[in-house]
């Protein structure tokens, strides 16, 4: 009897389940291999830790951007290909203001205004790190959000609002056009050169930091250094993500956003002012995108007009992986993508690490076509 049952179950195995099994098997094998590498000391434990840490850092800025992409999808009902260039907009506008303020008296106006397009205004000389100019850096962050919001609202007014009821495909195609227009407008002002705009990050040892509050650390932690720019990114991103969560769950606006992503027609007849919800969606989504762009530059040190565009594929992967339209899914997807592109470095060279992320996405989608968190929660 039992063997008969077993055979039945095997023959009933669908292709999806088979792919899921292979996926789990693959992850299992890689996990075992990871243990082997560490035990044989071929992979120093410290390096594994730093891969994981980098994975978390990457997933946080991907996640910040993914929230907006997911919201536009669930509330405005289209895949917004200009979202990446909103990230770029935030990066350029925020750092321009940081330079304008931070570089007063150090560099001439045009170098500051055009964000070093002429190669002047060395970041070190301008003092572009969080310890030398904390207020300037924070101001830049706020401006990055504000300018990106304004640009997004302007684009909505000029382009998307006219197409509100045109359906997802015309809007998607329009957004590709918007993406290109936005990016090359930025290039028109700032040139296409990649350049360093942030000074090397202060990297105090952990012991120094905790000494400020009068604590001592065990020896193995004390000598670890911490990259303060990365720390700024992590703290800002986490705070914003928690903020969005609280907003969505506990405020009237957040609830109406979830309601509208559930059912736009019902929201309309319930008396929810849908245009106001759309306005809020742009403000939150593009604000977070702008902040993400600004923080990425803070972490990486360099800025380029392709910043957001190149990131967009990973963001889409995260959003789709988590179940498109769900922001919690998007955040979980971001974590998976961020960890995958970094942990895959154990086995493959860094030029190829995005292959791992997209392969994983494809396999997961065959296994669960609606994403990991589909049907769990919208928005």
């Amino acid at each position: 009897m039992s063997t008969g049952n077993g055979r039945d179950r095997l023959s009933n195995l669908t292709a999806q389940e088979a792919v899921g099994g292979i996926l789990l098997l693959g992850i299992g094998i890689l996990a075992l291999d990871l243990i082997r590498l560490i035990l044989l000391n071929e992979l120093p434990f410290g390096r594994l830790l730093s891969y994981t840490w980098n994975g978390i850092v990457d997933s946080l800025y991907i996640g910040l951007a993914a929230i907006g992409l997911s919201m536009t999808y669930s509330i405005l009902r289209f895949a917004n290909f200009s979202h990446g260039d909103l990230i770029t907009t935030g990066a350029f506008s925020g750092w321009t203001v940081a330079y304008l303020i931070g570089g007063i008296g150090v560099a001439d106006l045009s170098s500051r205004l055009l964000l070093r397009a002429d190669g002047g205004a060395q970041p070190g000389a301008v003092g572009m790190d969080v310890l030398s100019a904390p207020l300037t850096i924070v101001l830049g962050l706020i401006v990055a959000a504000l300018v990106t919001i304004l640009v997004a609202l302007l684009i909505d007014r000029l382009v998307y609002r006219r197409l509100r009821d045109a359906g997802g495909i015309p809007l998607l195609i329009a957004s590709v056009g918007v993406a290109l227009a936005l990016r090359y407008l930025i290039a028109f002002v700032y040139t296409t050169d990649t350049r360093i705009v942030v000074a090397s990050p202060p990297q105090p040892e952990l012991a120094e930091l905790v000494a400020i509050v009068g604590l001592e650390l065990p020896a193995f932690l004390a000598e670890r250094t911490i990259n303060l720019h990365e720390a700024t990114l992590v703290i800002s991103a986490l705070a914003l993500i928690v903020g969005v969560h609280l907003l969505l769950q506990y405020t009237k606006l957040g609830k109406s956003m979830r309601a509208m992503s559930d059912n736009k027609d019902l929201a309309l007849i319930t008396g929810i002012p849908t245009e106001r919800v759309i306005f809020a969606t742009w403000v939150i989504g593009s604000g977070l995108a702008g902040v993400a762009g600004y923080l990425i530059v803070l972490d990486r040190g360099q800025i380029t007009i392709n910043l957001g565009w190149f990131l967009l594929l990973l963001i889409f992967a995260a959003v789709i992986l988590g179940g498109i339209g769900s922001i919690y899914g998007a955040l979980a997807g971001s974590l998976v993508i961020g960890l995958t592109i970094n942990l895959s470095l154990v086995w493959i060279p860094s030029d190829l690490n995005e292959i791992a992320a997209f392969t994983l996405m494809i396999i997961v989608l065959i296994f669960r076509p609606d994403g990991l968190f589909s049907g769990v929660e919208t928005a």
Partner: protein
Amino acid sequence: MALLDVSELDAGYGDLQILEGVDLTVDDGEYVTIVGPNGAGKSTVMKSIFGLTNYMGGSIVFDGNEIHGYRPEDIIQTGVGYVPQNDNVFPSLSVMENLEMGAYILDEVPESRLEAVFDRFPILDERREQKAGTMSGGQQQMLAMGRALMLEPKLLMLDEPSAGLAPDLVDDMFDRIDEINDDGTAVLLVEQNAKEALRRCDRGYVLVQGQNRYEDDGDALLGDEQVRQDFLGG
């Protein structure tokens, strides 16, 4: 003067005209039913009152205001509540959040109204935190009605509330509607279950191909030989 006075209403979807000169009135506190064959435009009347169709002519006066051209959030403000036939709750929101959305246009959710809805539908009270999408069809229907009642509308429009309900729940649903009406809310009901609807209502309309065919007291329509034969299956 009637609470709702629809006259000579022409409306449809895109270029397709569905309603051709529909007349309809609902008085304060009255219970009015629209019956008729599939495709007669029963639901379209309700959608048109809410401005969700393509308006082609005629007038819709509610409580003294010509509401044609109003935005849905303004129509709600005048005192019309609407429960559409399908997808009438927000599935990922909790029961409580669904009701809160019903009172969106108010600055604050009035505790008294919440209590009134919970009194009417105790099951909603028990399941405040449950996601609406995980409730049964009958419970969702009650939630949808509760949501529409949050603003204490003068007129409640219900589009086929008994559709998809188990037979033993249909009677219960009609009882609930009676109760709502007894408490003074005018009801405009569209129903497939024409006999039961006509039995319960004050007045009924028979709509055929987007036009008024008969209009009379519910019992009179039920008793009319022609109506029975053509629309009520004998």
